[in-house]
């Protein structure tokens, strides 16, 4: 069902959906529509500063009219990602009476529904604990230890302590490795900084052979060198992207509950997603920790998250069209050739 009233394509003229995409509700819908990518809203909240629950619905109603519904040409690579069939799959329910480990189960169920149609699930909104539900659903479909989790974050999320809970916002990756959902060496982290991890956690991370690209490395070696390292580590692998918006610099993405200065720039984030989309088979992605209650009137963080998703989609479509160089640029857009 297409929510857009007019052919021209104006985001403010239809019913609000993710990227202005048509809607789907079941696995059968996705199969019937041969949907490539299903955007699914997550409203689970697990943050010290509440508000991520509202991220998904805000992403359908951004203060934004400069994007086309479910399509548009990426002006880095000249690819129209509107050739992909994209759908809004609605939201995963969040039982706010329940302990969040039960809510992660519902994330698992809905992601599994999307995967059953051989559609790429892209989670929008919510909080980082949901990643565990993505990883269990992916491990069930593709097998444990068969895929890489590319984790963009200011924080390492393999916290040693659960304080009673096994899977929470800071520990889910530790449990995922302990349970064998992913291998430690298949966790690739980008953007770590701030006051963590402590030495005990760092030791555990080294024992697991986790590949962590700290901001320290980006500052010392330069972004281009680190990007090439990341792409080399990912080459030939199925990739699940777990994107915490606080991995970005707060100047670009202020609306997160756990700000840490000196993160990835908007350009670095957009390039990383485009490059990985071109180079790798993307099996799932999720963009979380957006707190619209902390955003500005122009929904700056929300619009960046929207464009990050669009950049990934452009990479996915470029790969379909036969582009193989992850650092490809459209020659038409590199010079003002007359």
């Amino acid at each position, binding site marked *: 069902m297409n929510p857009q009233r007019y052919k021209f394509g104006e985001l403010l003229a239809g019913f609000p959906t993710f990227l202005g995409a048509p809607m789907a509700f079941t696995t059968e819908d996705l199969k019937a529509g041969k949907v490539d990518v299903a955007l699914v809203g997550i409203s689970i909240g697990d943050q010290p500063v509440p508000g991520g629950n509202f991220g998904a619905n805000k992403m359908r109603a951004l203060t934004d009219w400069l994007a086309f519904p479910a399509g548009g040409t990426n002006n880095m690579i000249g690819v129209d990602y509107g050739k992909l069939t994209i759908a809004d799959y609605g939201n995963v329910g969040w039982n706010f009476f329940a302990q969040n480990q039960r809510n992660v189960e519902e994330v698992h169920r809905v992601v599994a529904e999307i995967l059953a149609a051989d559609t790429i699930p892209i989670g929008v909104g919510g909080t980082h604990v949901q990643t565990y539900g993505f990883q*269990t659903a992916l491990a069930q479909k593709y097998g444990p230890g068969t895929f890489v989790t590319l984790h963009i974050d200011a924080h390492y999320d393999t916290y040693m302590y659960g304080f009673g809970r096994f899977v929470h916002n800071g520990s889910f990756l530790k449990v995922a490795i302990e349970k064998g959902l992913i291998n430690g060496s298949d966790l690739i982290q980008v953007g770590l900084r701030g006051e963590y991890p402590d030495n005990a956690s760092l030791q555990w991370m080294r024992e697991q052979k986790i590949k962590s690209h700290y901001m320290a490395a980006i500052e010392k070696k330069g972004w281009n060198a680190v990007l090439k390292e990341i792409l080399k580590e990912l080459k030939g692998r199925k990739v699940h992207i777990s994107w915490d918006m606080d991995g970005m610099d707060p100047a670009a993405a202020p609306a997160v509950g756990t700000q840490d200065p000196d993160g990835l720039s908007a350009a670095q984030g957009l390039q990383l997603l485009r490059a990985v989309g071109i180079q790798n088979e993307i099996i799932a992605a999720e963009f979380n920790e957006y707190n619209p209650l902390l955003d500005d009137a122009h929904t700056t963080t929300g619009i960046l998250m929207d464009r990050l998703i669009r950049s990934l989609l452009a990479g996915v479509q470029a790969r379909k069209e036969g582009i193989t160089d992850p650092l490809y640029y459209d020659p038409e857009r590199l010079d003002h050739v007359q």
Partner: protein
Amino acid sequence: MKTTGCIILLAVVAMAFAFPAAVLSAEKSTLKAGIPDEWAPWKDPNNPNVIILQDDKDKFFERRERPGIQSERRAS
């Protein structure tokens, strides 16, 4: 005062109907296709109504023996 008392009484009666006393069910969840038990350490297959807590459940509220010492994280 009498009116206020009546309103409170009515509210209590209404609440009793709206939120009847909890009935504990020992049955497993009827929802299908959740996270398999081996990947869900919080589940007890023998007690489907229980969510297991880790041993460090009380750590968050542990008190320092005396003021001024470094926290565990800082000391590491």
